């Protein structure tokens, strides 16, 4: 109600009344509360923090150039196993495709070679060993050549295909004896002193070498040129090796000798695209990126949104149930009151945290989708949290019920529903607002705790709690403070601001609190 009595309808008197010092400033109860509230510097600071938080969460999400689940990548140099090189010092056996030259016979052959015997017997079969040249033996049985034992190997120059026995035999023998040509499968091949085998038309077919070079990936074919250069590098004792292939692509390789297996591992340095995880703060990402390569600042904004929305909805549910139950209970009294209060007692007694944790674990087991899960979380939190509100409302209404204005409403014959919801509840609202504001802070903490334990809001949704969840990894705790400290500070500030504002509101609503 404004004080209008100093502004008469007569225009002539306007000037007269304006500088009238009889004017009394009259404030509505709401304005009085606001005035008291804004006089409290601490509460105003809290309100400012809250407004900043809301702006950060709701407007920030729109301003941010990134989406909440946008992943960022970086190019990383990764060493990948590319090839293995073994310098052959063991006997290698090449089996004639048409004959049987089993592993156990190969072992016997090895024994015979070391003992320098020309023949051996194994399980009733006689084998003869023929030394063709240095480091090349042929094994015969019953007049048939079943295989050869050599220290060098023949590899095809053009593919990974296996070479025929006849060709291998010819090439190895030619290399060992120093011949310049041999015939296999009706074709004549020439061999140079390095062990390279050429076909009749001069094309390179294969080569003989004491090194075995194998690609780690089956689909990679190592060219002869690469192998030669690689082996040159190995023999020179280099640990790094650069090679430019026929397509002009240059690559770096790292060579490491593995004493255990007496082989060289060739690691290829390749550029790999990986998620930009735990990046340090940069101009693009002010707070760096998180475990999934997402922009931390944007996650914080969306996380704030989730935390605040969940807080509001939960408190809203709590208040609705609490006001209805408390209102009915307080107004009617008697057995209704008794019944409802026992229900309240029951809900007050249910240990909500364990229940919520169990339900969270059950939702894990049932693979509930993240968004549905969030909805359930709000319902559960609201459902288990209304008992306190109901008690408060009942207590208030019990005392209000006895006051004169309620007798007046009864005398006026106003309906019960109207009496409760139009006359009693509005008088409870100041207390309710205080409790709701404080409750918001508490709910946000509960939600964050659950999310921290991995039982609340789930990826891909962000919440301040599940952002801090990363500290369960001790390395993050110690090294990536930019991941969890900001979320914790925001959480603390928001909850603190809610509590301070609630406190300020309580003081402002309570006329007894003179300042």
């Amino acid at each position, binding site marked *: 109600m404004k004080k209008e009595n100093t502004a008469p309808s007569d225009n002539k008197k306007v000037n007269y009344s304006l500088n009238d010092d009889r004017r009394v400033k009259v404030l509505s109860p709401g304005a009085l509360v606001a005035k008291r509230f804004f006089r409290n510097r601490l509460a105003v600071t809290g309100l400012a923090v809250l407004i900043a938080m809301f702006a950060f969460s709701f407007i920030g999400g729109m301003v941010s150039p990134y989406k909440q689940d946008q992943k960022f990548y970086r190019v990383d140099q990764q060493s990948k196993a590319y090839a293995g090189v073994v310098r052959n010092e063991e006997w290698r056996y090449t089996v004639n495709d048409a004959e049987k030259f089993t592993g156990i016979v190969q072992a016997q052959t090895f024994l015979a070679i070391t003992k320098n015997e020309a023949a051996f017997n194994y399980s009733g079969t006689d084998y003869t060993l023929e030394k063709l040249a240095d480091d090349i033996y042929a094994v015969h049985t019953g007049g048939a050549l079943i295989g050869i034992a050599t220290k060098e190997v023949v590899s095809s120059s053009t593919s990974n295909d296996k070479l025929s026995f006849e060709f291998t035999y010819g090439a190895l023998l030619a290399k060992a004896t120093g011949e310049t040509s041999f015939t296999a499968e009706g074709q004549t091949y020439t061999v140079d002193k390095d062990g390279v085998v050429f076909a009749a038309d001069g094309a390179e077919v294969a080569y003989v070498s004491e090194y075995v070079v194998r690609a780690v990936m089956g689909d990679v074919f190592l060219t002869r040129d690469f192998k030669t250069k690689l082996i040159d590098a190995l023999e020179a004792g280099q640990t790094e090796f650069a090679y430019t292939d026929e397509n002009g692509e240059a690559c770096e390789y790292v060579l490491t000798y593995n004493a255990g297996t007496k082989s060289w591992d060739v690691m290829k340095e390749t550029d790999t695209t990986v998620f930009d995880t735990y990046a340090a703060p940069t101009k693009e990402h002010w707070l760096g990126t998180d475990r999934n390569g997402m922009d931390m600042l944007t996650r914080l904004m969306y996380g704030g949104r989730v935390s605040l929305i969940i807080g509001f909805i939960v408190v809203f549910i709590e208040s609705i149930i609490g006001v209805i139950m408390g209102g009915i209970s307080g107004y009617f009294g008697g057995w209704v009151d008794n019944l409802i209060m026992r229900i309240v007692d029951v809900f007050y007694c249910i240990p909500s945290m364990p229940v919520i944790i169990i339900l969270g674990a059950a939702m894990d*087991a049932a693979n509930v989708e993240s968004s549905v899960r969030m909805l359930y979380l709000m319902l559960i939190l609201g459902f288990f949290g209304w008992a306190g509100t109901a008690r408060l409302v009942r207590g208030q209404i019990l005392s209000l019920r006895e006051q004169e204005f309620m007798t007046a409403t009864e005398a006026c014959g106003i309906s019960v529903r109207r009496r409760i919801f139009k006359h009693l509840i509005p008088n409870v609202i100041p207390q309710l607002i205080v409790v709701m504001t404080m409750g918001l802070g508490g709910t946000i903490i509960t939600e964050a705790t659950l999310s921290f334990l991995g039982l609340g809001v789930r990826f891909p949704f962000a919440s301040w709690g599940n952002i801090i969840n990363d500290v369960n990894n001790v390395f993050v705790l110690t090294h990536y403070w930019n991941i969890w400290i900001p979320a914790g500070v925001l959480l603390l500030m928001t909850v603190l601001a809610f509590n301070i504002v609630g406190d300020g509101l309580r003081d402002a609503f309570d006329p007894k609190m003179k300042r």
Partner: protein
Amino acid sequence: MRKYIIKRLLISVVILFFVAFIIYALMRCLPTSYVENMARQKSMQPGSKSFEEWMEQLTAAYNMDKGIILGFFGWIGNMLKGNFGDSWRWTVPVVEKFHDTVWLSFVMGAISFVLELLIAIPLGVIAATKQYSKADYTISVIALAGISLPTFFFASLLKLVFSVKLGWFDLYGLVGRNYNQLDAFGQLLDKAHHLVLPIITLVVVSMGSLMRYTRTNMLEVLNADYIRTARAKGLPEKKVIYHHAFRNTLIPLVTIIGGSLPGLFSGALITETLYSIPGIGFASYESMIAGDIPFSMFYMVFCAILTLLGNLLSDILYAVVDPRVRIA
């Protein structure tokens, strides 16, 4: 008085009955696949019974084959006989695991509770006596900050500063690496050393509300007429505050302190989990995550009993301490 206590006890039993029913119904309403999953997991462990046998056992233990109501009565009958079943997660009887863990939680809770009282009450009194001074503002903000501080964030900060940077404490656990080599006294010291951070966390997080409670009540008392009378008599301020005002503040304080005593046994679910302190809170958290229904249900009913006991105790204490309260 005795009549009142008996009446309250009876009501508490009824409430407990319904709480147990809700907990039981909740467990029954979990997706059936959940229990089956548990049985399947249990049966896959080496040397375990077969899936059918586990299902049979669960069905028998929780009366799954009967309706919810009948099953509930069967279950509560078992509980009354002291038969709480065997914990799945810990593979020992529930009562045994409870016995192993609850005392550690109680010791931890008791120490932090005493510290909390020693810090919160004096600060609350100071804040009230110097209302609107700088000290009052500082204490109020500290109290609010304590209430607003998320336990897990504060624990992480403590770990970062004291465990990682300064290296004073271990990150997790109750005992150190060379615990077995220590003598009895050394073992006690080792445990105490490991409890420092959890207790700090508990105290800081929970002292805020008590501080505010003390301040509010002290303010109320300081505005009372008899305080004005005391001052008018010319009593020294010290005597007014500590003799007349503080004693009257003790009335609400004693009731709230008495009410929180049973809660000391319930353990600190979050704090124990964060520091991996093997108390009842951590054990039940592990059980809940692992879907250990026997232990979780036992823990929940236990918590409900503690809450009821706390309420009862604070109401009785209120009547005992405050002669103005007459119990009908």
